[in-house]
């Protein structure tokens, strides 16, 4: 037991643990919308795009969060615009924009030779170098995103489930989508340090997918995914220390393990629950009649 608690003596580990737990919760929450809107690939691409901004700003000596943030936001809005206009296939557009940005980041590091700890951390996540300002940043972003989801709940839900009808009903869906992309970019940016850009997508997708298998209610899915994300972040970070593995892979593997567990457990129950609902339609209905007689 004391061996398990020993890393808590170190400030860097305490900071890392808080950041990982909040990062997991944040990605879990945002991931619900990402998964239900079928945007998993956008999340994956966006995290890679942000890496380009990270490389550029670290080489130019600009504040990394600011540089990568502006870059990420620009990529997010560009992807959003291309996706909405349906000029070319959305997946192709995302593939081009984000991998080009990622490649640019890699090329810049290769040419200017600044590969090192921060480079690895950006790719795979690292607990080292997580300071108090990172803790404050992730808490601030989490609070901001929770506020956005809380007050935008109804419009976000309608836009996610039924964008055409939402728009027809007066919801400004373009604005809602843009806001969601901005939230996604911000979340990736805030969690990049601990999770790594190559693995952020998994922390967006896994908690939401596990939560979906556990519930049929949207509000419960939001709570479950956030809780599952926090749990995987917390456990993953501890494992990362004890097994001496980078934090990103450790957190993702905990999530993947949970997925396998829930998938296996709900497989039988899920089949039982849906059994008997294949029969659509109702029996013994009266014959059709000519309609509208009484009022026409």
């Amino acid at each position, binding site marked *: 037991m004391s061996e398990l608690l020993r890393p808590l003596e170190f400030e860097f580990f305490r900071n890392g643990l808080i950041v990982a737990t909040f990062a997991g919760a944040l990605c879990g929450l945002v991931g619900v919308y990402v998964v239900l809107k079928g945007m998993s690939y956008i999340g994956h691409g966006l995290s890679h795009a942000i890496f380009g901004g990270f490389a550029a700003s670290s080489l130019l000596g600009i504040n990394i969060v600011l540089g990568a943030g502006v870059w990420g936001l620009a990529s997010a809005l560009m992807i959003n615009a291309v996706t909405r206009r349906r000029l070319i296939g959305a997946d192709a557009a995302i593939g081009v924009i984000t991998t080009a940005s990622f490649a640019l980041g890699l090329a810049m590091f290769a040419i200017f030779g600044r590969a090192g700890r921060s480079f690895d951390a950006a790719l795979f996540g690292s607990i080292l170098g997580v300071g108090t300002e990172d803790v404050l940043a992730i808490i601030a972003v989490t609070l901001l995103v929770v506020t956005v989801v809380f007050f935008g709940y109804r419009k976000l839900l309608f836009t996610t489930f039924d964008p055409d009808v939402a728009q027809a*009903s007066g919801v400004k869906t373009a604005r809602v989508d843009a806001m969601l992309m901005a939230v996604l970019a911000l979340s990736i940016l805030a969690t990049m340090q601990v999770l790594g850009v190559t693995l952020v997508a998994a922390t967006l997708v896994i908690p939401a997918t596990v939560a979906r298998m556990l519930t049929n209610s949207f509000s*419960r899915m939001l709570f479950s995914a956030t809780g599952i994300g926090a749990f995987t972040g917390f456990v993953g970070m501890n494992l990362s220390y004890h097994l001496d593995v980078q934090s990103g892979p450790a957190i993702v593997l905990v999530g993947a393990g949970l997925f396998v567990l829930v998938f296996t457990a709900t497989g039988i129950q899920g089949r039982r629950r849906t059994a008997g609902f294949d*029969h659509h339609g109702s029996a013994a209905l009266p014959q059709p009649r000519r309609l509208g007689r009484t009022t026409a």
Partner: protein
Amino acid sequence: MRSSNRVLPASEVLVSLEQVTCAYGSTPVLVDVDLAITAHQFTGVVGPSGSGKSTLLKVLLGAIRPVSGSVERSNGLRVGYVPQVEAVDWSFPITVAQCVLMARTHGRVLPWPNRAEQREVAEVLGRLGIDQLADRHIRDLSGGQQQRVFIARALLGRPQLLLMDEPTSGVDVATRHEVLHLLDDLHHDGLAVLLTTHDLNGMAAHLPHLVCLNTRIIGHGAPRDVLTADVLERTYGARMEILEHAGMPVVLDGYESAGNIVTLGRRFDRVTA
């Protein structure tokens, strides 16, 4: 002759379109459409794929602005919209009650419904006979029940006009009957209904008023006046034959009715015989 057991006020025009033209890019979808929808009207819009039926619904809803022409709607008009069932993501994690409440995006900001909203949802579900299904997942319903959920969502906004996109597309015969009867009841309660349909015999022929659309309005009126070989040929670009059964028109595909009856698979029969 049609009978009337209710005294109705003079029909108020809810929406009227005058010379409305709509286009996606340079492709016209609706051209010079004149149409007036009055209170208590029950109208079906028929036409081939790509004839502008869905666009017409969106113009009536106010979601699309025409390139030219004018759309006049009565003051404070409330319109309900029911999408095609086939367009719904049935695996989305949402219960019947959550789905119905979804359309309530104005007024209250907090995520959970207040008492008044809970009562309204319960009332509308009760009116459609699905109140006992409030906590069910939307996938775990029959076709008719699924259709009722989306009608309930539209009714929560207390519409005067209900627009439905292909309400019987992809549903079985029993569900189609169920939906027809439900719509007739809603119409009888004073709701104007306008729906699009591909189904000339199963749906359109039962409605009191039809509009034949193929970018332009080809004809409108009672089924008996509109479901004619001439109007249908101009609407669909194919010859059809009209029979009459129990006082209602029955549309036959002209290919078969012209004596070209083909039984497929005969060549294989011959080989094996």
